């Protein structure tokens, strides 16, 4: 596929680009809620791509990944809300949030370097919970995080007079707040995709591959396995922190409840279901898993009504049931994910043969 029809690839990329640019206006027809849902889907794509570096590239199972998202979100919230009376600009806080998350990534990575697989999963799971519990309890003796009440009235992105929280009309088109965020998120997503794809093809990407396959052999090849694993943790965490900051600004309110274990597992599911190690698969997984529950939310009720004439099962129950069933079916029939990476595909083929 790659490079065989360069002209076709460019045309395809151009069409996708135009579709992505026009998307919010099409969605706005169905309601601003859908633009918001799309924004959250992009945040999940960012998270999944970040986690994919740790899990998919370096092969280190991280079950506490949402902690980095939480750190980024709290850094943003504390530096741009009435809570401390600080209102720093977003272009300053987002990098700070990514940096703080990155530091914590290294902090988590350093003591767990010798752990693999199940053991690493348990430690990272603990780490995720520690961060959440800290956020929940750091309201005493000095009120830092405001505890379970969370932080509210967080500043939206502002750039001079351009406020992401307000609607505006440009070139005769109405740009609502969510639409503005959509374009910002889209740009961020493109940047992160670019970085990830380049990383995968680089020496660093090959080193991650070697570490994932056989750590001792990797060291014997001249790879500094300690640094390369820490780098995976640090990079994954920074992406998470970045996404967290944007989440706080879009949402305007955050509390520890947004960063529970299920969220970590959700992101892992996106990576695994989409296809660990394959950037496009991971994106697909994130988009599907973040849209599916929403689509079901709006369709389950009308479908029930049209078939049975009334609502038999509570929509919320059946929604998660169908969602779970879809995950089971996908993993049953596409065990390496929807778009498996070349190496994973081989792994499974080998096990069968």
């Amino acid at each position: 596929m790659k490079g065989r029809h360069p002209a076709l690839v460019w045309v395809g990329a151009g069409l996708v680009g135009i579709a992505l640019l026009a998307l919010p206006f099409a969605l706005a027809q169905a309601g601003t809620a859908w633009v918001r849902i799309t924004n959250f889907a992009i945040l999940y794509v960012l998270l999944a791509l970040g986690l994919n570096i740790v899990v998919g590239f370096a092969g280190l199972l991280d079950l506490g990944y949402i902690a980095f998202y939480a750190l980024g979100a709290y850094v943003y919230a504390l530096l741009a809300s009435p809570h401390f009376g600080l209102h720093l600009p977003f272009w300053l806080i987002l990098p700070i949030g990514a940096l703080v998350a990155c530091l914590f990534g290294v902090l988590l990575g350093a003591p767990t370097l010798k752990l693999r697989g199940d053991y690493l999963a348990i430690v990272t799971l603990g780490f995720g919970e520690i961060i959440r519990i800290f956020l929940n309890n750091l309201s005493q003796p000095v009120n830092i995080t405001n505890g379970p009440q969370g932080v509210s009235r967080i500043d939206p992105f502002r750039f001079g007079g351009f406020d992401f929280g307000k609607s505006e009309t440009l070139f005769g088109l109405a740009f609502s707040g969510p639409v503005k965020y959509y374009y910002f998120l889209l740009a961020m997503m493109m940047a992160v995709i670019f970085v990830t794809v380049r990383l995968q093809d680089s020496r660093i990407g090959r080193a991650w591959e070697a570490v994932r396959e056989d750590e001792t052999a990797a060291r014997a090849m001249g790879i500094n396995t300690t640094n390369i694993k820490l780098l995976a943790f640090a990079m994954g965490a920074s992406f998470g922190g970045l996404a967290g900051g944007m989440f706080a600004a879009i949402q305007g309110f955050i509390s520890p409840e947004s960063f529970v274990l299920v969220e970590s597992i959700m992101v892992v599911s996106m990576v695994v279901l989409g296809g660990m190690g394959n950037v496009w698969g991971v994106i697909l997984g994130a988009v599907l898993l973040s849209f599916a529950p929403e689509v079901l939310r709006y369709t389950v009720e009308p479908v029930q009504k049209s078939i049975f004439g009334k609502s038999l099962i509570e929509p919320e129950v059946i929604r998660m049931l169908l969602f779970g069933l879809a995950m089971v079916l996908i993993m049953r029939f596409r065990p390496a994910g929807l778009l498996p990476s070349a190496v994973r595909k081989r792994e499974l083929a080998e096990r069968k043969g």
Partner: protein
Amino acid sequence: MKLLEIEGLEVRYGGIRAVKGVDLAVDEGELVCLIGANGAGKSSTLRAIVGLTRAAAGSVRYKGAEIAGRPAFELVREGLVMVPEGRGIFAQLTVAENLVMGAFVRDDAAAIRKDRERIYALFPRLEERHGQTGGTLSGGEQQMLAIGRALMSRPKLLLLDEPSMGLAPLLVAKIFEIVRDIASQGVTILLVEQNAKLALEAASRGYVMESGTITLADDAKKLLADPKVREAYLGESVG
């Protein structure tokens, strides 16, 4: 000139001393073998030389500089490369990808490609299987791949840990032929083997290791003729 010089090397695992003060030297261009029974401490010695296992005491000098305690990945850059026991190939990567991974410390793409062709010339079998994953190769092919991959980093001193392990006799002979071939191209080799006969036939000098210490060190030919060696390692009864 001495390329590798070891003095009083000790390796401990918890309270157990696996290597109890080993002295050993390898000159540039030599093929030296280290033979001994299972559990004599041969592999531990090799692993301590390249930094995969920490040396508890003693000195390891490579090209005249002390390297004890330096991590393995740094030494690869200086041409000290080990082919680990059990081969350690990347099972999910193809033969070609494995070979490229071997050249990780180099960044001269054109020369790397050329070297890969050289490896294919040395092991035509690997060229036939270049698109196959490492895990699907036979034991002998995996050993060839492991050696080929190590050569991709252009080693000065190659440490081979039991290259004949688990191979059919015909393949063992083939592997030894290749080891000699590599040595004749100017790569210095320290070979650890349980197959004492073949190792001593290939090497110019040999060391015999027994429960953590070197018990004999001599020309390979003399060791081959030594009645103690013949009895203990070549399965011959003397007398």
